[in-house]
């Protein structure tokens, strides 16, 4: 609590985070001062919700609060002692005191009691909650001033404070550029503005940025979070959808400055407009961006109800700033919204021609052909074309090397070639008791107990330095049932899984070795998950596995397993090979077997055919020229499969080709989820306790009366609902939208609870200003650019963001706007900013989603390989984050504090954790930007210090101070010294990201400057809206 001597009895209190002034002589405001207290402490039991109501008393209605109740009343205006409310809240008797001690509601503070006291003394004037009254516009406190500044200054001067000086020009151009385009200014843009002293310079800058093609993208990012837009369904299946043309519709709508009322109507009811265009129908995808649940066994109707509820709640949050969801199960406890009214809103969305399904079955769809695909295809073709020559050249080099190699092996295998090396076990173990004994040729025989299921484990040094594959031979034996393959009743075996691990002497932990494929000479032919195919031994699932039943059980059989990558085995290392017999019925353990390993790569371990070197040895040739064409080809395949440079070039080409194939799919019409009404409307019922199949009374479409009353026949369709939302009489929508725009520029809204303008939300810091802006928005035909221009041309916006300790103490959250807003940029803007600063940014607009870098395995871990993330190749990698593929269950890892896109979100998160630091230090996007920038400045400037100045300016839009420069010089020298001594490390540091970016001259210099650039990208200033 603060006390200001200017007012004898005034209090500036902090209540629920809001600063309100209470002056002894000033009237208490019902809606600002009294209602929040009543709402928070009393309404739970004495409010709109009848089911929770105690003593039949309502304190949200004047009639009930002042009604005579056996000679007493809760509130008797101007009579404190007669007002039971005052008696009870002050009572020391726990049986009488309100709120009751066991109600989990806090006791009123002395200040709160004083407010109620003064209110009753002043006659207990009633009113409505502020946000349910229509905004009206009074003339600003100071004529001729910018209206925003007039309000802000008036408020500041009441506190004895003043608006701060303007921000430095380079700061201002950077701030404005981020706010209106989400990108930092280029060096030229900074120079142009800083050197232009004319009064037109700033307005011209504003105009230029509002017209920038990046304006629509920046605004779209706000809207996509609110719209919970995602490229996948969410939930278990998390299937991919193709709703991205809607994202482009949003960009275009903002870019073209579509009035917000029209923007609303098209998204709610574009399909119902007369002669609806396909773009108008596309707009309705807004209300299909919710998650969809296709989990097996789920009742689609239950899911459908969830979707409808999501639409109502999203409408509540985004347009009305109300937590409508509270009324889903019962009357809203605080706001005057009944459960019945909730389901009236529900009814607007209840007759969509949908059936609750997910994945590809989430009708209704619009077939929509995007105009933004041709560019993407062209780009993807460019990457393939660029990589092919490289791949070809690498192959030519490899083929030349092959000739040399061939000569060598011809000589080497002349005396014979041993393809497989039988493992001689150091340890043979079983879990359930089977006895295993090994013979000299490596064959292992089972004897003794024959448990229903068992695991065999064989530990052995491989005898070769490198292992690429394993061979398992299974033999019949006379000791087996009828001389077949096993000792169980049928004589057949079922091998459910195999595992390979590497053990290092002296270490207690094992390393799992991945097996990538398995082939066998005989398999039982089965479909689905069953016992037959050898591939089933690789998945740790006992419901499938390998059996040769149905083939001759008196023949030996063989399976070959390929390692995912060749394994180097040191002298102190051993292989551990485990065979699991865990089938459902069991009694099918292998009776006799042998395990061998090979060091031959590629095709040799992916088929059962004789290995190329085996054939070569058998062919008895004396020089390479005699090798047959067929064999030569197979030898070449094997050689290439082991050739690192060739493999890498091929992989990179293959990635580009895969991307091209993928992008080409976007050429055809995309299926976009949209709205359309079904033939017959569904009946709508109140859902008791919100349970999907628990029907209460039937309701028809309608709108909450407390917000803006309308007769039922006037609100019969979704378009009526949309028009009601943007009606000039609607007290909420314009205020809510203005608040979100303000928040975008200032980091926080005039109402600090942007999602809740209801009784439990915060009171506006500047109620008159909020209303003035809301009216302005409506009177200016919902022109968003007009509003933004108004905001950014205010002095309030242009203030310096520096803060003194004194001001920080008086107004830590900058609720009075006595300084510019300083807050960390959203993480998407940080990435976009790095792309722009480094020159890597691909400014193309629209088209299918792209995949910025993220660490390997994030999707695969979550979905056990069902989805794999393939970073975009070439220019597609450098698109703005807006276009990044959004998987609902695994949001992009490089974004932090971002909306989750599961349900709508309108309040930015601002946290500061070491995980964010790690992300910015090690994310490939930032590292690649650092590398590109390093290379650019080295190319531009020969003088070392100039290079550092350029780097600094590119990232921070200003020149470094001497002391800053000193730090840069020190760090670049440190890095240069290190890399000069360790050129290999410098080379290694270059080895990431796009191959086109990897190649580098002057590797030591580039590495040293990369380090400094990365440091600069991590500065607080670099990631902050100043």
């Amino acid at each position, binding site marked *: 609590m603060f006390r200001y001597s200017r007012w004898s009895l005034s209090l500036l209190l902090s209540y629920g985070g809001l600063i309100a002034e209470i002056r002894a002589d000033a009237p208490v405001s019902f809606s600002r001062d009294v209602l929040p207290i009543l709402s928070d402490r009393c309404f739970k039991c004495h409010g709109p919700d009848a089911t929770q109501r105690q003593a039949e008393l309502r304190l949200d209605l004047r009639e009930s609060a002042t009604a005579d109740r056996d000679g007493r009343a809760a509130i008797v205006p101007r009579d404190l002692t007669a007002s039971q409310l005052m008696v009870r809240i002050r009572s020391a008797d726990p049986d009488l005191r309100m709120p009751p001690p066991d109600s989990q509601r806090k006791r009123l503070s002395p200040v709160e009691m004083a407010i109620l006291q003064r209110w009753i003394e002043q006659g207990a004037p009633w009113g409505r909650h502020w946000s349910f009254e229509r905004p009206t516009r009074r003339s600003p406190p100071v004529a001729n001033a910018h209206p925003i500044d007039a309000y802000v200054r008036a408020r500041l001067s009441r506190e004895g404070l003043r608006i701060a000086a303007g921000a430095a020009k380079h700061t201002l151009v950077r701030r404005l550029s981020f706010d209106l385009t989400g990108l930092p200014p280029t060096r030229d843009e900074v120079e142009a503005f800083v050197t232009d002293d004319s009064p037109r310079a700033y307005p011209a800058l504003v105009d230029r940025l509002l017209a920038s093609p990046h304006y629509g993208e920046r605004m779209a990012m706000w809207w996509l979070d609110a719209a919970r837009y995602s490229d996948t369904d969410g939930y278990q299946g998390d299937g991919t959808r193709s709703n991205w043309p809607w994202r482009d519709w949003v960009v275009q709508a903002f870019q073209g400055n579509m009035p917000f009322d029209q923007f609303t109507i098209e998204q709610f009811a574009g399909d119902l407009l007369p002669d609806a265009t396909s773009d108008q129908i596309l707009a309705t995808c807004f209300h299909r961006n919710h998650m969809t649940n296709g*989990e*097996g*066994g*789920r*009742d689609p109707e239950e899911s459908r109800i969830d979707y409808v509820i999501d639409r109502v709640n999203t409408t509540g949050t985004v347009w009305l700033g109300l*937590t409508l969801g509270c009324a889903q199960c019962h009357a809203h406890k*605080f706001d005057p919204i009944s459960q019945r009214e909730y389901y009236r809103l529900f009814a607007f969305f209840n007759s969509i021609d949908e059936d609750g399904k997910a994945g590809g079955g989430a009708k209704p769809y619009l077939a929509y052909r995007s105009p933004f695909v041709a560019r993407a295809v062209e780009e993807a073709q460019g990457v393939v074309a660029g990589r092919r020559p490289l791949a070809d050249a690498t192959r030519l080099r490899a083929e030349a090397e092959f000739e040399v190699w061939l000569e060598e092996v011809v000589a080497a295998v002349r005396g014979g070639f041993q393809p497989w090396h039988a493992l001689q076990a150091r340890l043979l173990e079983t879990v359930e008791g089977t006895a295993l004994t090994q013979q000299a040729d490596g064959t292992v025989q089972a004897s003794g107990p024959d448990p229903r299921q068992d695991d065999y484990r064989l530990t052995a040094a491989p005898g070769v330095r490198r292992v690429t594959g394993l061979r398992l031979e299974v033999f019949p034996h006379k000791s087996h049932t009828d001389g077949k393959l096993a000792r169980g009743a049928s004589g057949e075996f079922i091998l*459910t899984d195999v595992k390979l691990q590497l053990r290092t002497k002296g270490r207690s*932990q094992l390393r*799992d070795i991945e097996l990538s494929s398995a082939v066998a000479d005989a398999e039982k032919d089965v479909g689905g998950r069953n016992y037959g195919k050898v591939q089933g031994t*690789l*998945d*740790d*699932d*006992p*419901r499938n596995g390998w059996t040769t039943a149905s083939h001759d059980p008196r023949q030996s059989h063989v399976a070959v397993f390929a390692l995912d990558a060749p394994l180097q085995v040191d002298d102190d290392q051993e292989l551990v090979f485990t065979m699991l017999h*865990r089938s459902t*019925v069991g009694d099918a353990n292998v009776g006799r077997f042998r395990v061998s390993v090979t060091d031959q790569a590629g095709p040799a371990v992916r088929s059962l055919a004789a290995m190329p070197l085996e054939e070569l040895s058998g062919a008895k040739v004396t020089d390479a020229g005699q090798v047959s064409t067929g064999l030569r080809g197979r030898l070449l395949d094997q050689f290439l499969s082991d050739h690192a440079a060739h493999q890498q070039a091929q992989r990179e080409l293959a990635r580009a080709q895969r991307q091209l194939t993928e992008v080409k799919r976007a050429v055809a019409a995309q299926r976009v989820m949209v709205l359309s009404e079904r033939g017959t409307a569904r009946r709508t019922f109140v859902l008791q306790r919100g349970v999907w199949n628990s029907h209460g009374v039937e309701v028809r479409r309608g709108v909450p009366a407390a917000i803006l009353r309308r007769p039922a026949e006037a609100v019969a369709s979704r378009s009526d609902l949309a028009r009601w939302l943007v009606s000039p009489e609607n007290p909420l929508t314009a205020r809510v939208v203005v608040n979100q725009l303000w*928040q975008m520029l200032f*980091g*926080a809204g005039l109402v600090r609870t942007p999602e809740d303008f*209801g*009784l*439990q939300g915060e009171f506006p810091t500047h109620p008159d200003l909020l209303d003035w802006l809301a009216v302005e928005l409506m009177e200016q035909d919902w022109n968003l650019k007009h509003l933004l221009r108004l905001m950014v041309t205010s002095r309030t916006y242009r203030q310096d*963001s*520096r*803060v003194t300790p004194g001001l920080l103490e008086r107004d830590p959250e900058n609720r009075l706007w006595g300084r510019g807003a*300083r*807050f*960390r940029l959203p993480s998407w803007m940080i990435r976009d900013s790095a792309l722009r600063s480094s020159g890597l940014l691909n400014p193309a607009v629209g088209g299918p989603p792209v995949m910025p870098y993220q*660490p390997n395995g994030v999707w695969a871990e*979550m*979905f*056990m*390989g069902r989805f794999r993330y393939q970073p975009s190749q070439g220019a597609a990698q450098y698109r703005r984050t807006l276009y990044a593929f959004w998987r609902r269950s695994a949001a992009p890892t490089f974004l*932090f504090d971002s909306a989750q896109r*599961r349900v709508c979100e309108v309040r930015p*998160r601002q946290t*500061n*954790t*070491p*995980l964010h*630091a*790690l992300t910015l*230090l*090690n994310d490939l996007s930032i590292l690649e930007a650092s590398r590109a920038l390093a290379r650019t400045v080295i190319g531009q400037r020969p003088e070392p210090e100039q290079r550092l100045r350029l780097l600094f300016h590119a990232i921070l839009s200003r020149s470094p101070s001497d002391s*800053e420069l000193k730090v840069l010089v*020190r760090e670049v020298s*440190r*890095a240069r010294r*290190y890399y000069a001594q360790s050129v290999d490390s410098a080379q290694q*540091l*270059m*080895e990431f990201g796009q191959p086109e970016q990897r190649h580098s001259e002057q590797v030591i210099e580039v590495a040293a400057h990369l380090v400094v650039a990365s*440091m600069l990208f*991590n*500065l*607080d*200033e670099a990631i902050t809206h*100043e």
Partner: protein
Amino acid sequence: MSNRLDDRTADGTAIARRHFLRRCSGLSLGTIALGLLEDRTSAVGVDSPVAIGRPDLPHHEPRAKNVIFLTQSGGPSQIELFDHKPGLSKWAGQELPASVRQGQRLTTMTASQKQLIMPARTQFGRYGESGATIGEWLPYHARIADDVCFVKSMVTDQINHAPAMTKFLTGHQIPGRPSLGAWASYGLGSENSNLPDYLVLLSKMKRSSDQPLYDHYWGSGFLPSRYQGVKLRSAHDPVLYLRDPRGLPRNLRRGMLDGIREINQMRFEQTGDPEIQTRIRQYEMAWRMQSSIPELTDLSDEPEATFEQYGPDSRRPGSYAANCVLARRLIERGVRFVQLFHPDWDHHSRLSSWCVARCRDTDQASAALVQDLKQRGLLDETLVLWGGEFGRGVAGQGKWDSPDGGRDHHPRCFTMWMAGGGMRPGMTYGATDPFSYNAVEDPVHVRDLHATILHLLGIDHRRFTYRFQGLDFRLTGVEESRVIREIIR
């Protein structure tokens, strides 16, 4: 090393238990520091600079300081594992009486099929002095029968995985609420722990599970994100972005961080924004995490005996068994809440091979963890929970008499066990009807479980609320829930 082991060797068990929280500041692992915590940030949507939990907590003397939640995702079958119903064999193949089913909703997988009773596929034994019934697929569990409390009357109201798991872990079926661990971390914080308050360990599996483990299961919902669980991956980056790029040595990274600190400090002097100071601290913490997290997850300093106790699978990094070892290490270091997830308990078919496979993954290590904590004197203050989001139905899915038979989801009863942290050991609480279908004695709803866990942590669930969008939310929601005092020592 800033962990309780050292305290104990120096001062004896009792002191270590009482005072460890106050004693481990400024020491090595530690240095990871106050968890992965952000400090106060801008005015938007953030609470006050809490690093030590809520000042009004605990509400009463806590019984447990830490929690290990062994989450078995997919719905393990109580009928095969714990809830012995010898009378069922008489009913084999007969239709489930309507008086038992009482209109229970089925998933669409079995809704059209007759509900024919499939008796347990296992033999049961009675173990320990308490005579707990445990199925033969969990032989190691028999050894901890007298250490744990079985709750056989668990109840939920969700029948599909994602909503049920979301309910089980966040108290509400729709994603968006804070998870149990996030609530604990928010409420109790970690005065001086050197690791995040809430760590999540997922079993690395070869087989693709049909139920992805969504990060909202350990999310912070509307609580500040510092309270969300931090997932330790079994990949070579245990925490995303932890590793520096190849070719960047530590001394250059240190130089960069010095440069960042110095220039940020200059900026702070110019702008006066205290947020910059926070950022400087977070970058330093990031640097320290880069060495202390790998040190934590590297089990090579564990003696051979550990791996013998936890079983052969514990030698395999990323396995459930190895994660159990890691859980114990985290508890030793004072981490508040450790949550393991083992997927693939959704046995709609071939119960007798599929379910056995998951039992083998988890049985020995789960039991070893309880025993190990007990041997080290940590069990008294550590609550260990084992369970999944729902149980399985008595009717067979597929042919009830074929080896291919499995069981569908069942929300009306399932079994969990709990040990340590104030729980009554060697107890069985609640009971189901002869069909293991309805919890007929002392039913424990998921929210009662939540109330009980919070109670053990010293928190009154009714008073533990967080204001969001104008409402005071609590883990146990708006419906009545009760602390199950009968199972508390």
